[in-house]
């Protein structure tokens, strides 16, 4: 059939396009370098629609170029009066029916994919003991930070989402102040975190692709939410299923009140209480899920970024410097955030050193 032939002819075009697009962007951020089956499905739809559209554009451009080259007045003569054609039923039918067919070709996979991506049956599946088999993460979006709660595991973290590779991860998302949108471009499309209702969807993190991105994907807020909307980033650490189990165990066994490593840190712990930090920030991975006013700090010392944006590139000193900068000057780093900064009058330099020492020591998994 003609259609079949057309498809085969398009194959080289398809490959070429995929090749060109895959050069675009960074593997940890780009939707053009899909790193999981959700993103892959969406990427395939992008390619399919692009191919159909390129075909349309080529047809249009051929007619277009011929008509503006061939029928210039300079060419047809200044005084020529063209024949006043009314139209053509045959042509009208052709360019109505052909686009309808093209749209139908696109509509079928669109509808199919829309329903596949909304399928949450696996989320409800339980084993013999009645425990849920799928991993579920409750995501709570707040003014410029993210909370990730694992309700079945009894642990909670913030800013760095930790997930196992090669299995579906289910997300329940909601916002606690204004509307945000939860997006990990390389792994799949976004879903809005509404204020009044929970949305649910799933993502799948591909192990091999995750390695290309150094097991760290960038997540973004995709809905305008205030001055620091642009800075409401989070990171996704991907672990192999075994490592993920180890991480869960470590998080579950972490102490409710982490032991300070030295005297300075012990002083820091006091400052943490005196300054009222503890009113908003939990330091145990078991506390504060769904209610705390600020991010859980249990794993602060091992987060990939400070405040989700400041990259210390593994340098301990830089890490400390950024934590101090954040405490002193949070308002400049993320305008409009709900913590605000603590200047020298609020917090002496000595106390800041102690506090930073304490915070740097808040680690669970890398110990």
């Amino acid at each position, binding site marked *: 059939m003609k259609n079949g032939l057309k498809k085969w002819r398009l194959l080289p075009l398809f490959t070429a396009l995929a090749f060109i697009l895959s050069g675009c962007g960074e593997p940890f951020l780009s939707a053009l370098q899909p790193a999981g089956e959700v993103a892959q499905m969406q990427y395939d739809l992008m390619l399919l629609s692009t191919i159909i559209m390129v075909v349309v554009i080529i047809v249009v451009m051929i007619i277009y170029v011929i008509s503006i080259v061939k029928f210039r007045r300079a060419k047809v003569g200044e005084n020529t009066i063209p024949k006043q054609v009314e139209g*053509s039923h045959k042509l009208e039918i052709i360019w109505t029916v052909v686009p309808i067919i093209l749209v139908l070709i696109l509509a079928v996979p669109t509808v199919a994919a829309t329903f596949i991506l909304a399928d949450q049956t696996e989320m409800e599946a339980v084993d013999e003991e009645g425990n849920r088999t799928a991993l579920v993460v409750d995501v709570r979006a707040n003014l410029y930070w993210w909370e990730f709660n694992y309700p079945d595991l009894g642990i909670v973290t913030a800013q760095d989402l930790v997930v196992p590779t090669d299995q579906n991860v289910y997300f329940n998302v909601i916002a606690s102040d204004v509307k945000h949108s939860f997006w990990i471009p390389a792994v799949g499309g976004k879903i809005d975190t509404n204020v009044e209702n929970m949305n649910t969807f799933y993502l799948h993190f591909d192990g091999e692709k995750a390695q290309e991105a150094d097991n760290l994907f960038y997540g973004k807020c995709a809905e305008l939410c205030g001055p620091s909307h642009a800075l409401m980033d989070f990171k996704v650490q991907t672990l192999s299923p075994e490592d993920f189990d180890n991480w869960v165990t470590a998080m579950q066994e972490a102490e409710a009140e982490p032991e300070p490593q030295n005297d300075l840190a012990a002083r820091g712990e006091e400052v943490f209480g005196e300054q009222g930090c503890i009113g908003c920030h939990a330091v145990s991975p078991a506390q504060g899920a769904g209610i705390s006013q600020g991010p859980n700090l249990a794993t602060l010392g091992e987060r990939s970024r400070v405040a989700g944006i400041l990259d210390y590139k593994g340098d301990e000193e830089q890490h400390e410097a950024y934590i101090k900068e954040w405490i002193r000057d949070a308002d400049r780093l993320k305008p409009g955030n709900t913590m605000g900064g603590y200047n020298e009058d609020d917090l002496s330099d000595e106390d800041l050193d102690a506090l930073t020492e304490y915070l740097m020591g808040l680690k669970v998994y890398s110990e």
Partner: protein
Amino acid sequence: MSTVVQKKGFFPVLWDYLTTVDHKKIAILYLISGGFFFLVGGLEAMVIRIQLAVPDSNFVSAGLYNEILTMHGTTMIFLAAMPLLFAFMNAVVPLQIGARDVAFPFLNSLGFWLFFFGGIFLNLSWFLGGAPDAGWTSYASLSLASEGHGIDFYVLGLQISGAGTLIAGINFLVTIINMRAPGMTYMRMPLFTWSTFVASALILFAFPPLTVGLFLMLFDRMFGANFFDHTMGGNTIIWEHLFWIFGHPEVYILILPAFGIFSEIFATFSRKRLFGYSAMVFATVLIGFLGFMVWVHHMFTVGLGPTANAIFAVATMAIAVPTGVKIFNWMLTMWGGSIKFTTPMLYAVAFIPSFVAGGVTGVMLAVAAADYQYHDTYFVVAHFHYVIIGGVVLGLLAGTHFYWPKMFGTMLNETLGKVTFWLFLIGFHLTFFIQHFLGLMGMPRRIWKYLPNQGLEVGNAISTVGAFFMAAGVLVLIYNIIITQVRNERVGNDPWGDGRTLEWAIASPPPFYNFKQLPLVRGLDPYWIEKMEGNDRMTPAEPIGDIHMPNNSFIPFVMSLGLFIAAFGAMYQVDWRASDGAEYGWAIPVLVIGMLITIGSMAVRSLKDDHGYHVHKEDLEKDDEEGGRL
């Protein structure tokens, strides 16, 4: 009576414009104020592009950036694109159908002044504590949380100017239904009239949802209601629905008249009748109809479920079909014609590939599952700038050059026009094409800054360079307008030489009563038909007689001014109540006074009979001998 006005000073001219009910002068008012807001919106766009030129930039602060992006969108849609389209509708549609004015000249003036005061009110926010900062969509959770009066300016300003738009839409509907010249059947109406007709119908049905949404927001923000406050049982998603039930048809309200302008230009400069006229009319109506069935494609990621998403995805794709029909008919209009590349025609020719590019990304966005990736990224920013600039703004620029002689009696310089065209076109593609890729590479829209090392630097730098080309193009256009008006070289009825429709059959600019005798329309492109039969003018459909004209009126201005004043009272009474009456004691009185001014002027209008006046037969005949300048 402002009939005999030849050489006048500044103030008489100003008074004439403040009180005019003549569709041609109202067109000029729309053109000037729409053009002014276009420059304001463009300036805001330049700040956005400068801010994003380099990573981690601090050219503007985060809060100010959100105000600028909000005002850029709001200004361009409501205060630039729509009024500029109304300018051409007012200038051309009554002439195209052979009418002496619109059906309700008083309402026409009222519509303009409501838009004008609404726009001024909205922009005064810059000087009174900060502009709105929740995006032009003003989603409810963020807009309710927004501090200060920015959102109040948005709600009240758009409410006032929206009323003006609704009035203008109704006016055009009635005009086109009732005031067509003898022989001007529906299927002989020029495409620009048809698209104005359909766009006006869309205004009639699309603006009420916006009005409702704005009222709910107004009560939430100013009078303590809780329609959108979820902690009190409200729901923010309702705002999204109301906004997009308006917002999607709004896009077609903008693009359809632009399609109309292009249809006229293609036919004129190809010296050929529009190919597939009836299919074009049908496609226009179908696009307008389908435009109401697709709003959820703006909300695919809200979580409405796969059934809703799938239905709206397929409905959205369906719009590609009538739009495609139009594109092919335009190309076939050129095919076999005799194409003259004047400035308007260059815009029309450039419009096809630009709009096709915007159209195909529209179909891509309709693929709901893939839209989860595109939504709220620079891909969407690229898409809607491709349709709005590639469609609407190119249409407006084409219309400016094409209809300038008819509106002002002078011809914009063609060389400068072409310079503007090339600068603007190159700048436009340079700015926005790369943004498709930025979006797919992970850049969300409406971001104040992006951090380095995310692969977004090069694309953004290119985009900013393009924006400067566009700005340069606009500056050349302004220069062109100034020198053209200073030189003031008058042109005749049909300066392009290939005019086909009725507006080219009368003087440029037309006398204030338009047609001395209503023309007899004998087919599509009536002036062309007469020209082909060797006639230099239309066959009259009536003997010369007295012409009934409306009187000028200052009432529309005062009526709109009253609402403008009342809006300040409505806004500051919030502070008055917040301070327990200690401050802003003037707020409620101002609200009352403003409303009284409006209601009072409505009463005057209703109670005082104004029968207008007649231009007498003898004066018309004398006018003819003096060269048509009464």
